[in-house]
């Protein structure tokens, strides 16, 4: 069984976000990049499933050469090989088209993604890939198991969870609680250096959106402090002034 895991390379969670070129570009200077946390979970669970089903795991990223060191980390975690589609990821649709192309070519039974990237926050690549391929999607899952060519997963819904089964091939996206992310060991790191990282050309598809500019969210105008002794005053403010209830 071949599994394809989609990984994106994102700024570390502590990054202070700034922009350059008149707020049209994310300022990468001094920023540390990591594997998207949800994609680490997808990869970890995919490795477990591959181990249990005599399978292999290929990681794929759509990104430029500066993502290679992070892709090596995915290989160190245990992936068999990697594909890098050599292009700047323009938007979710563009990324999904590249991934679907590779998924078709590679005879995979399962595409695993993260719930969302913590930089673009689209939560969309998985659905787009699924529909391009005509495969079912189980989105935002906290369990994922395979029996008899069927994937059974528990997905988050508003106010609860739902167990869904889908016939392979299918697409699933990882949510926190799925597993603990695997930490590469020394042997994995050594092996990763010689594992195949295949760089492929991008196909020219779906150039539907572009970021015109970025802005930072409005900041709070300052905090009004209330004395702990008169804490109840907060409730009066929220009731009378803010009219929240």
């Amino acid at each position, binding site marked *: 069984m071949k599994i394809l895991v989609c990984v994106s390379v994102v*700024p570390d*969670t502590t*990054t202070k*976000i700034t*922009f350059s070129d008149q707020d049209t570009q*994310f300022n990468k200077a001094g920023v540390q990049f990591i594997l998207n946390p949800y994609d680490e979970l997808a990869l970890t669970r995919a490795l477990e499933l591959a181990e249990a089903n005599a399978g292999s795991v290929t990681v794929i990223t759509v990104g430029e050469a500066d993502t290679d060191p992070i892709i090596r980390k995915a290989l160190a975690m245990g992936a068999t090989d990697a594909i890098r589609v050599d292009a700047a990821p323009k938007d*979710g*649709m563009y990324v999904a088209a590249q991934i679907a192309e590779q998924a078709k070519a590679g005879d995979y039974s399962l595409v695993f993604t993260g719930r969302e990237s*913590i930089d673009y*926050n689209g*939560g*969309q690549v*998985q*659905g*787009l890939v*699924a*529909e391009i391929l005509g495969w*079912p*999607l*189980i989105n*935002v899952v906290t369990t994922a198991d395979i029996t008899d060519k069927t994937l059974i997963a528990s997905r*988050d*819904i*508003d*106010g*609860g969870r*739902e*167990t*869904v*089964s*889908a*016939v392979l091939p299918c697409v699933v996206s990882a949510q*926190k*609680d799925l597993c603990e992310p695997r930490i590469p060991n020394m042997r994995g790191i050594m092996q990763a250096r010689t594992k195949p990282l295949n760089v492929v050309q991008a196909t020219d598809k779906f*150039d*539907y*959106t572009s*970021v*015109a*500019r*970025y*802005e*930072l969210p409005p900041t*709070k105008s300052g*905090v*009004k*402090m*209330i*004395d*702990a002794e008169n*804490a*109840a005053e*907060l*409730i*009066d403010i*929220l*009731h009378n002034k*803010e009219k*929240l*209830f």
Partner: protein
Amino acid sequence: MAVVVYAESDNGQYKKSSFEAITYGKDLAKLLNISCIAVTIGSKGNENLGAFGADQHMHITGKMLATFNPQAYAKALSEIVTTNNGTVVIVSQTYNGKSLAPLVAIKQDAALVTGIVDMANTTNGFTVKKTTFSSKAIAHVSINQEKKVLTIIPNSYHTTKDSTDVEILEIDTQVTENDVNSLIVSTNKEIGKVPLTEAELVISGGRGLKGPENWHMVEDLADALGAATACSKPVSDMEWRPHSEHVGQTGITIKPNLYIAAGISGAIQHLAGVGSSKVICVINTDPEAPFFKAADYGIVGNALEVLPKLLQRVKELKN
């Protein structure tokens, strides 16, 4: 041409975010000088959607549509979009909405933008504002594709309501087993609790609450206010609280009207999930806690003493 809005319901009740989506669709349709069609699939709520701005209401039923399935619902919605010459599809960004929108976008060869927080700007092309970098920034996204699918973050857009009624057009759609390769095995929902993702008021606790035995203070205040409860990541990691309450960069992103944070330091990853709440109140023993910088109201004090005082006052006001 039309703006088509998917209005989600649950147990015969529309979600509040469905009304926001319809109002959004109505306002956008006005800008584009076209009509606004509300679509319900499988089930619907009681309210008349004309009151929120829909010019038409189409209710689709059929064999595979009784419960949400992304493939079945996408096929049904996409057919309505095609037959009514829909150019923009509006979906509220709920869990189901997030699964539905990309499938419709591919079927329609439409551009897809998720995470939208404001009305589109149509004066020069078509631009929308979306959250990025885990709410640490907003991107102005230009769409250069005629058809568009947009998902709107709940609680980002207002609702308007009047007394207009529209008739419901019943539509029977042919979705077959062959269109659907997945099915629901079982569903597990907490009944009677306000789901965190839909809550307008949220009371949240962090490690400063010391242990699960103190959580009744958070829950009692939440119950008295009709609020939902949330927590920081370490609290769910230590299993003081269920994972479904964990908010932040690696948890749920919420945007309630009120967020009360008790015993939470306000780390950047926590703020990523709650920073766009309208009114933020922080209770913390440490006056230097970073959360105060992101707060509207702050109390320096012991949450275990402050929370009961708040509860007391809410009870007085409610009586």
